[in-house]
């Protein structure tokens, strides 16, 4: 079908060009103009996939176009996700949440340490993000890849400012935890994904930042939830009771809870408390330090944004899905199925319509189909 359709199209193009040539010459237009017209026309047709290009134009294989636009996007997401990488570092997963916690809670005991940490944070940030993603992914890795990516994107927007804050938390965590390197690697990978948006002035993680700005709200919430949990973990450590298992469990819970937490921070806390039974104390302790740090640095602005985002965050995870759905829907809508034809007759018997069409062009499912005759039977 496609070949015949494209053959007809090519014939039409050549026919038009040849028959218009005389008029072009009479008008004093140069032949190059006509050649340009043909070249542009054919190029557009190939881009649309209307011409497969068996002849000269074949260079662009566009028949698959129908699925093409959408699928590519998905593909991109999948590679970026690099599920394997993310998954591997369980320790990272656990850790990431903690750093996040710090930023939210802000209140850290050692501000000086935090400042030190701040510099490194960028790298840490990505790690944390990845960790969060990984946690999310783990539950349903196989199918949900697409979905997970979107949430990441959303979360990251907050990133830059958050990163600083996070850094502090992360640094502590990293120190406590053994796997900083692994996390960093992940970040780089993730950064690649993020790169599109804005980039990484500072670090791989920086790539995340741009995106995070948009979805920042979501990230913030996410972070907060994680942070709250992380803070809980923190407290444990300080107390000397720190249990890795508990931390992990908290992280996992945080990931699952994230959606709920997305809402206002306060709400998130409330939710967290009842659910996980995380100690309120932890939050309090952590928050004070974090605030000091943030206030001093630009991070504070980030926090503010995060606060604004807080309302939005709940949307983030779901939003991503929604966005994806919307995109798909949009595409479907865009792929209007259109039939252009001349009609011989249209008849109706009660609610049953019959029509006879001829010499038509159908554009269905991103394919062009030509027909000389068509019979239609419709129920109204």
């Amino acid at each position, binding site marked *: *079908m496609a070949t*015949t359709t494209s*053959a*007809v*199209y090519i*014939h*039409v*193009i050549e*026919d*038009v060009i040849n*028959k*218009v040539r005389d*008029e*072009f010459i009479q*008008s004093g*237009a140069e032949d190059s*103009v006509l050649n*340009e*017209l043909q070249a*542009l*026309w054919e190029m*557009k*047709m190939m881009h*649309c996939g*209307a011409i497969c290009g068996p002849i000269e134009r074949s260079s662009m294989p566009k028949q698959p176009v129908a699925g093409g636009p959408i699928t590519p996007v998905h593909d991109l997401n999948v590679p970026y996700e690099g599920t394997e990488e993310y998954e591997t570092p369980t320790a990272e997963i656990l850790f990431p949440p903690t750093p996040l916690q710090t930023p939210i809670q802000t209140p850290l005991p050692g501000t000086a340490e935090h400042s030190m940490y701040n510099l490194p944070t960028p790298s840490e940030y990505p790690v944390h993000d990845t960790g969060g993603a990984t946690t999310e992914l783990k539950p349903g890795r196989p199918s949900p890849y697409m979905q997970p990516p979107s949430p990441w994107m959303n979360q990251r927007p907050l990133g830059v400012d958050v990163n600083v804050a996070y850094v502090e938390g992360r640094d502590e965590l990293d120190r406590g935890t053994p796997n900083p390197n692994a996390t960093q690697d992940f970040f780089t990978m993730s950064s690649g994904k993020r790169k599109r948006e804005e980039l990484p002035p500072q670090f791989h993680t920086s790539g995340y930042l741009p995106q995070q700005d948009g979805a920042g709200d979501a990230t913030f919430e996410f972070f907060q939830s994680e942070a709250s949990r992380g803070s809980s973990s923190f407290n444990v450590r300080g107390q000397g009771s720190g249990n890795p298992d508990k931390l992990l469990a908290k992280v996992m819970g945080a990931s699952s809870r994230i959606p709920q937490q997305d809402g206002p921070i306060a709400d998130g806390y409330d939710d967290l408390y009842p659910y996980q039974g995380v100690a309120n104390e932890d939050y309090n302790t952590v928050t004070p330090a974090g605030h000091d740090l943030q206030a001093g640095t630009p991070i504070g602005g980030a926090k503010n944004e995060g606060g604004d985002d807080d309302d939005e965050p709940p949307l983030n995870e779901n939003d991503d899905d929604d966005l994806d759905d919307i995109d798909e829907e949009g595409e*479907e809508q865009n792929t*209007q*199925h*259109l*039939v*252009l*034809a*001349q*009609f*011989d007759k*249209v008849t109706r018997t009660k609610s049953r*319509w019959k*029509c006879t*069409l*001829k*010499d*038509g*062009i*159908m*554009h*269905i*499912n991103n394919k*062009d*189909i*030509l*027909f*000389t*005759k*068509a*019979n*239609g*039977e*419709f*129920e*109204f």
Partner: protein
Amino acid sequence: MATFELYRRSTIGMCLTETLDEMVSNGTLSPELAIQVLIQFDKSMTEALETQVKSKVTIKGHLHTYRFCDNVWTFILQDALFKNEDCQEMVGRMNDTYSIIV
């Protein structure tokens, strides 16, 4: 033979229209010539459909909306099923059928 402008809405027609728009806006093509090209396209497309295409199609579906205005029938179908001789079937959620009286 009569010519029909309806094919300008097809993929090939839209591509031509876009091309002409670009060239006219660039100043490389005069609007008059562009119109001549479109008219020639109407003729060539109609002729090509008559002489080079021999496939037949059947269309079935739920008729959501019908309209007959200015000698143009418009049918909007839901869950339309298209079959041609190659036994290819396609389902379109929404289909617009524009027909011009012969």
